[in-house]
């Protein structure tokens, strides 16, 4: 499976036995399913149904990663508030939104609150595990001194494949995991057109064309903020996108 191989490619699923993941999800069936699946993969899991309950428990001991649903029962934007509180408690805590809501507005709002990634519930378990693994790696390496790096350089673009960080003309571009994988997929073979389906596969994403379009739009905006002359991501109408070198 593409997701499983992607997860395997980043080389880590079963080794981190002591990692603790918190799930805040109002639907009991989904909550239990994700919790059990993550436990089977060796994580320690704490599951909560509501914001107050989660905040009370997590404040005393922060987990290593949090999965948050936006709508928490009657608290329709409870996930956003929880994300803000947790981000205030820790700047480095990896936070992933895992939600049924996928409007641009929600995605932008979620990422602006400091979440590291935004996934819709279409994401498969292997894809989710790949992201969790990647975020743990990023958190781990952010603290560690510069080690031997696995880098991809395309002109002004530098991608650090271990830390999942990107720089453009020396300036750091803050990317979510999804965005990082999309840039990576595009920049790996410059001038090759990547269809939306290919991008989806490479970014471990199961979404529709429209979502890819808005991801690309957000990516461009982030690069343009660092460099107003940025034009490396080219739209090939009717096909997809390519990286212009």
């Amino acid at each position, binding site marked *: 499976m593409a997701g499983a191989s992607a997860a395997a490619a980043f080389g880590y699923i079963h080794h981190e036995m002591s990692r603790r993941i918190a799930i805040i999800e109002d*639907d009991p*069936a*989904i909550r239990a*399913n*994700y919790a*059990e*699946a993550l436990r*089977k993969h060796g994580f320690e899991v704490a599951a909560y149904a509501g914001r107050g309950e989660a905040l009370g428990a997590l404040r005393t001991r922060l987990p290593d990663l949090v999965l948050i649903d936006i709508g928490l029962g009657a608290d329709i934007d409870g996930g956003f508030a929880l994300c803000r509180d947790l981000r205030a408690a820790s700047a480095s805590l990896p936070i992933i939104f895992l939600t*049924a*809501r*996928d*409007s*641009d*507005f929600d995605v932008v709002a979620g990422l602006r609150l400091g979440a590291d990634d935004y996934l*819709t*519930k*279409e994401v*498969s*378990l292997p894809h989710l595990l790949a992201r969790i693994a990647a975020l743990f790696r990023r958190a781990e390496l952010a603290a560690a001194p510069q080690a031997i790096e696995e880098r991809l350089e395309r002109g002004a673009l530098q991608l650090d494949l271990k830390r999942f960080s990107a720089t453009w003309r020396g300036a750091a571009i803050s990317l979510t995991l999804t965005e990082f994988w999309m840039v990576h997929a595009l920049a790996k073979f410059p001038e090759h057109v990547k269809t939306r389906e290919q991008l989806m596969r490479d970014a471990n994403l*199961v*979404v*529709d*064309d*429209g*979502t890819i*379009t*808005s991801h690309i739009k957000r990516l461009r905006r982030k690069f343009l903020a660092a460099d107003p002359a940025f034009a490396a991501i080219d*739209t*090939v*109408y*009717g*096909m997809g996108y390519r990286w212009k070198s």
Partner: protein
Amino acid sequence: MKRWRFSLRVKLALVALLLLALPWAGTLYVNEVERFLLRGQEQTLLATTRAVATALHERPQLLASSSGRDDEVEAILFGVQRASSRIWVVDRQHRVLAVAGDLRRPAELLQQSWWQPLLGWVIQRPTEDFAAALPESELPTAPEIAAALQGTPATRARQTQDARAVVMSAAHPIWSGDEVVGAVVAEETTNPIVSMKSEALERLLLLTLGVFAGAAALLIAFATRLSLRIRSLRDEAESAIDARGRITRLAAGSGAGDEIGDLSRSFSAVLERLAQHHAYLESMADRLSHELRTPIAVVRSSLENLKLSPQGADAARYIERAEEGLARLNRILGRMMEASRLEQSLSTVERSRYDLSAVVGACAEAYRMAYPEASFAVELPERRMEVEGSPDLAAQLLDKLVENAVDFSRGGAPVRIALGETGGAAVLSVANKGRSLPEGMRSRLFGSMVSVRETGDPAKPHLGLGLYVARLIAEFHAGRIDAADLPSGDGVAVSVRLPLAWK
């Protein structure tokens, strides 16, 4: 046979014809009065003859003394005679002893009203130009004279010889002792009464015509106003649901207090409910897909957990099938979301100026690869076609049109993608050979969840949102989209008009 259709105005005019009953009743009344007057005239004549006879009765010598006309008798007659009447006295031998007066009315009594020449052909005035027979020629044949000479007063109405007038005559015996010595005869035409009747009828006719014309004018004005209001209501009601299925409100007559105002208001209410229902249907896809995502996530995560546990070969097979089903469900949801997500994002999409020709060209190249089984004929203009909007959306629009055209294309004829300019707008049309548009679907085609597909490939779900998405994008570009059968009748062309950006 063509069924006759009467407009409201014609019907009201027909109803106005009932007013004609009024002059008919008037005519009956006038005739009745005429009969009454004639009887009066008869009695008057008889009274006159009686008076003369009585006068002569006292002077029998006047009758006996002479054998010819007698001046003294004539003097008496002159005393009782009236204009337009004639009185004469005869003796037993039918000799006329005296005559006074004339049957013809003097000309100064005949006054002409201004309308008479206009109405003369409808209502005949009595004429004074008739053959007034001389008394001598009347005598032997007149039954009333014979009766009077027998001793009985009598009256008679007769026509003149030329039948132009009716003469009323009365005769009264003159007694001398026990014997009748002669008779007094008074004659008068009915012309004074007939001319009164004619005048009355003329006035009645004029009045009727006037009232009828006035009433008809009022009715027609009223009917015209009603017709206009109803017609404008009809026009508005017809255009309330436009060619692209959008529902607007009615304005005509909504403030009027009468039935048409009521009708317009209830039309408006119906349309409003229809619009709500329409909006509900359009948002249905969105809500449905949102609601479905959570249970689908439950099913999928459960399946994934199941896969993690040890299981038999059977279980793996069923899990695989369940996952296929889920994937299909997800595709359906994806399509449902596409329209609503597009609706949401349209308000935030940045508008830019771009060359539509380049976008269409690039897309066309891509379609040749994406649909290897189909062929394409592409016509692009040489020059740039700058429009205002979003090139990504334009490409999405073209995707939808081409996807449809390829699906409906029959007989291996190429799908024709053409871009041209007409009247300040870029016209992009995608045409395919195949069956024509179903009757009545043309205007609904671009609504949400409208599909004309008969059967579908279950792996490629169609929810009738493709052309709806296309319409949203065309409208975002301030353009419009239409579908029509090809002139040859063997296919369909969908054309999009997008206004060109100002130079």
